[in-house]
């Protein structure tokens, strides 16, 4: 207790005059690595994640509830289950191609969103779906039968059992699964290379440009790292390493949130 307080207060006396422009500065140009930052890539990552989360979590949790609670075990259900399980193992580049065909391209089945954040977020959402579905199913399955029985016993309909009892009990598992899926797609570069993330972004990205028009260009941290490592100037390699550390810090933060949420809900349940 005392030692930790000492540790915290001691940091106040460290002469902290280091300015970290790295996180807040925009990319300047190819000749000035040390004054460049990952601001655009950071915003790009956050937007892509947000869109992926909004588009995938409700659908995936709904699908998991349907498969686990409602679907009768017919051949079709088994087939869907097998497909979902397999989708979770499909290489990410394939999802990139899917996103390119559906979200980016205009005409045919394409939605014509262009190489934008919206298209990238939706692609990443599709990629996260099978993972979230499987994690949610696992969480729903682990809700004890006695809880369902007691709910049916007081005369709940199936939806009331699901909504009032099963879902709240499965919530920690579902949230953990969703956040872990998000942190997995946060580190993905391959699908976005196909969807069309660019490396040289000078301005902050516009998240809805694919729909409303405007500058659709965007990038995310993994892509930024990838392009910087392929520059000849070793200074850029140092920048890539710094960006990697930022990415890892972001991942650790996400996973910590998952742990905190899970603990919070567990405590509320027990």
């Amino acid at each position, binding site marked *: 207790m005392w030692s930790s307080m000492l540790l915290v207060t001691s940091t106040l006396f460290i002469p902290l005059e280091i300015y970290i422009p790295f996180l807040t500065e925009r990319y300047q140009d190819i000749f000035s690595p040390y004054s460049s930052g990952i601001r655009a890539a950071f915003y790009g990552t956050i937007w892509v994640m947000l869109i992926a989360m909004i588009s995938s979590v409700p659908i995936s949790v709904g699908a998991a509830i349907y498969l686990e609670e409602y679907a009768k075990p017919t051949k079709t259900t088994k087939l869907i289950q097998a497909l979902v399980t397999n989708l979770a193992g499909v290489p990410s580049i394939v999802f990139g191609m899917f996103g390119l065909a559906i979200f980016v391209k205009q005409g045919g089945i394409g939605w014509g969103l262009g190489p934008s954040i919206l298209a990238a977020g939706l692609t990443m959402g599709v990629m996260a779906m099978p993972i979230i579905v499987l994690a949610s199913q696992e969480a729903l399955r682990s809700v*004890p039968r006695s809880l369902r*029985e*007691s709910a*049916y*016993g*007081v*005369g709940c*309909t199936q939806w009331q059992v699901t909504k009032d009892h099963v879902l709240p009990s499965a919530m920690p598992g579902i949230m953990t699964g969703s956040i872990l899926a998000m942190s997995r797609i946060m580190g993905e570069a391959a699908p976005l290379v196909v969807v069309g993330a660019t490396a040289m972004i000078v301005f902050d990205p516009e998240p809805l440009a694919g729909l409303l028009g405007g500058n659709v260009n965007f990038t995310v941290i993994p892509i930024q790292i990838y392009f910087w490592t392929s520059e000849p100037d070793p200074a850029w390699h140092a920048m890539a390493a710094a960006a990697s550390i930022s990415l890892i810090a972001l991942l650790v933060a996400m996973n910590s949130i998952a742990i905190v949420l899970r603990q919070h809900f567990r405590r509320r349940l*027990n």
Partner: protein
Amino acid sequence: MSEEAQTEEIPNSTRDLEIDDEKELMIEDLDLWYGDKQALYGVSLPIAKNSVTALIGPSGCGKSTLLRMMNRMNDLIPICHYDGKISMGDVEITGKDADLVEIRKKIGMVFQRPNPFPKSIYDNVGYGVKLHFKPTREELDAIVEKSLKRAALWKEVADRQHELGTSLSGGQQQRLCIARTIAIEPDVILMDEPCSALDPIATAAIEELILELKKDFTVVIVTHSMSQAARVSDYTGFMYLGRLVEFDKTEKIFSDPDNELTKRYITGRFG
């Protein structure tokens, strides 16, 4: 063992049962299968109103299955299918278009292991009431208090109704489950070995409660303990291998059973 001896060991279910009291439930010729395996064979059984009916028998004889059939709890098991009729007055419980919510409101259930919701004590009792009756806050408070009192739990939890139901002791949890069941004013309460996870003192409390409850409700109880059946029940049915071997007034079953199997079971010579 010769085939003849075996058929002698497995009697048919008794039929044409008559009881003097008014009937609450009537089970007629109920067959039930789990997949290909038959679990009940032509069981017929009347349940007398405002009385305690006990079902006894060795493990796996189908007594829990029969009990769970009375409020269609077996519907939760996908491979379970059945043939026969259970009726409650004019309502046919086994009917294809039976309203399961209405049935489970009228026929409540208390399970083997205490299974309160992971909610507060108050919400545990109030949940079902809110579901079915849409009471005002004051009405709900009154119902919760009354139900906890009737379940002999009020004195212990009056000042901590907002603590989690799962934080109570096993016996208290089981009485909470009973309070939750009686809060929605069912006609029948089904109890599936309600004391098997409890110590003797908690068991005694529940048994006392059952005797109290039968004034207002019809109770059907499945139990492993013959002494418990003898203590609390008015009628007793003895089941064996999916058949209802004998059904009669409890005094008759425990003093002078008609069936040789029943006699051997209650004297502890098998099962």
